[in-house]
């Protein structure tokens, strides 16, 4: 908890006593959370733990039942929506493009918050869209209709749109769903690049605990709408945490590639390997 408390004062985006829910069902209760500036925060948790709800709350898609989401110290719901949109970008889950829309047109819509009522499209918008397409390696797709693209290309284009918005903070809800493992890694690499290049604060919900451990600077584990642990993945991810959050017995080893925690689930059919920390060595003897 100390890690959270120290960054509370400085974080641009944080939740204070936040409760969220749909109709009568409360999902997130009285949650305090600070998203460290300039870092990649990944929110993990079991299905239905409220991680997407929390992200939607942070992105002002849900009105808090209690408490507030603070952006630069002020309640996000009390700031003009368009102003917030110049600071905070959002990629919701499973976006669907309008029929026939071309990639440039879609990515160009990310420029909307930067336009006033009378300020029209300008050369700087062209440049921002071009840059976003470069970053996502999608310049060649510029003239293509979005609905003709493959799943991986499409996700890159959506991210390009979020990039064209040129915000300091970017929230993403499961940006890797429906992507094969190569595309998952590609998208996450891109987001880390973005974080490194622009110092952008990235907050995302991920399903895959191992990818989360690998790409997060700051990991937030949720259970039943409350924060169970938050901090560096290497400090936070332990067998006890995996048990508490997912109800899963697991070993945590060091990822041979990234030196980050790697969760190896045990399951009912592979109990034997539980006996030893390094199964490969045990088998050899």
């Amino acid at each position: 908890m100390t890690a959270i408390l120290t960054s509370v004062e400085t974080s641009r985006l944080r939740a204070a006593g936040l409760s969220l829910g749909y109709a009568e069902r409360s999902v997130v209760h009285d949650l305090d959370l600070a998203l460290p500036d300039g870092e990649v925060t990944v929110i993990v948790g079991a299905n239905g733990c409220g991680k997407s709800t929390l992200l939607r709350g942070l992105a002002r898609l849900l009105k808090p039942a209690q408490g507030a989401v603070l952006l630069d110290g002020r309640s996000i719901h009390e700031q003009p929506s368009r102003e917030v949109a110049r600071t905070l970008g959002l990629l919701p889950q499973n976006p669907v493009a309008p029929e026939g829309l071309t990639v440039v047109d879609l990515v160009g819509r990310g420029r909307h918050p930067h336009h006033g009522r009378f300020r029209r499209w300008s050369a700087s918008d062209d440049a921002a869209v071009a840059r976003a397409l470069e970053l996502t390696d999608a310049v060649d797709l510029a003239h293509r209709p979005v609905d003709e693209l493959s799943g991986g290309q499409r996700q890159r284009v959506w991210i390009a749109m979020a990039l064209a918005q040129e915000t300091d903070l970017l929230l993403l809800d499961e940006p890797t769903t429906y992507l094969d493992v190569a595309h998952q890694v590609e998208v996450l690499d891109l987001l880390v690049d973005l974080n490194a290049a622009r110092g952008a604060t990235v907050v995302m919900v991920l399903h895959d605990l191992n990818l989360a451990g690998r790409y997060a600077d700051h990991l937030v584990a949720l259970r039943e709408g409350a924060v169970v642990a938050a901090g560096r993945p290497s400090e936070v991810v332990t067998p006890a945490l995996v048990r508490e959050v997912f109800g899963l017995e697991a070993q945590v080893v060091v990822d041979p590639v990234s030196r980050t925690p790697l969760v190896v689930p045990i399951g009912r059919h592979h109990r034997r390997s539980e006996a030893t920390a390094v199964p490969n060595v045990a088998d050899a003897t």
Partner: protein
Amino acid sequence: MTTLAPDVPAAVESVEAVRAARRRPRRRLLLVWAGLALATVAAFLARVLLGDFTFTIPDAVRIVLGEEIPAVSFILMETKLPRAVLAVLVGLALGVAGAIFQGVLRNPLASPDIIGVAMGASAAACFAIIELGQEGVSVALWGAAGALMMAAVVRLAGGSGSQLVLVGVGATVALQALVQYLFTRADEYDAHIALRWLTGSVGEATWSQIRLVVVGLLVLLPLTAMLAKSLGIAELGPDFATGLGVGPRRTDLVLLMAVLLVALAVAVAGPVSFVAFLSGPIARALNGGRRTLVGAGLTGALIVVAAEYPADYLFTDVNYPVGVITGAVGAPFLLWLLASGRTGRSAR
């Protein structure tokens, strides 16, 4: 994937690629607009000059400029011309409104004639005619109010997604039952007048109606144009729209413009069947799958003015309301749309 250097400006070639990609659909859009405008003018001229009484262009011009030719002037100035002008205006309003509905609600089925807004106008007008014995302007106001009320009810009960379409279809069925009940109580004269409020007609067009619609359009169309950008964002879905600074209230404002356009059209011509529903998808198909509000408006105008001709002359002894023709064309289109699976969000 390229690795990132610290934020550097985009390469010149990339910016050029973006400009070129933005230009490309624009050329087609201009062609579509020009083509539809020409077709509308042609249909308009055919409607005015041809038919059971044929005018030559010089004669027509002279009459419009004020020259009095006994009997002939009356036919042109009091029946043919106002009917054609009103047809164009009503089609324009319905076409734009339908495309807005379909765009914001992200569903080609979500046009005012499917989700009960038009039926609301019909039911309210029939009620006013049959039960209250109203006529003329007051019936028009009832019709417009009915459209507005149904829009509000469907929006409040159905949210903003596919739920709204279902609620709207349900409401349409309920209102249909109400209309049928009203008809069982109507005398022949009222029933005949009320019938016009089920299909829509420009048969009794007058210049004062036209003035009303022109003023309404002069207010509503510029407002709609100002909100068109928000429509482009709203059609990405409510989550994205909020993320880009277009909140639900602004989205509702865009929808309100469409509802007012429908109310305006309905007040003078009744709910001309399926024009709002057809125009958007047709304009979109012409434009290579991309939405165009202007194109939808022109398509609506073209449909109504073109349907006016067969409505008037298809059978020598009957003068059908124009809605009968647009409905006959619209129903198969609706079936095709449902059968081809374009009503989901997975179009293509």
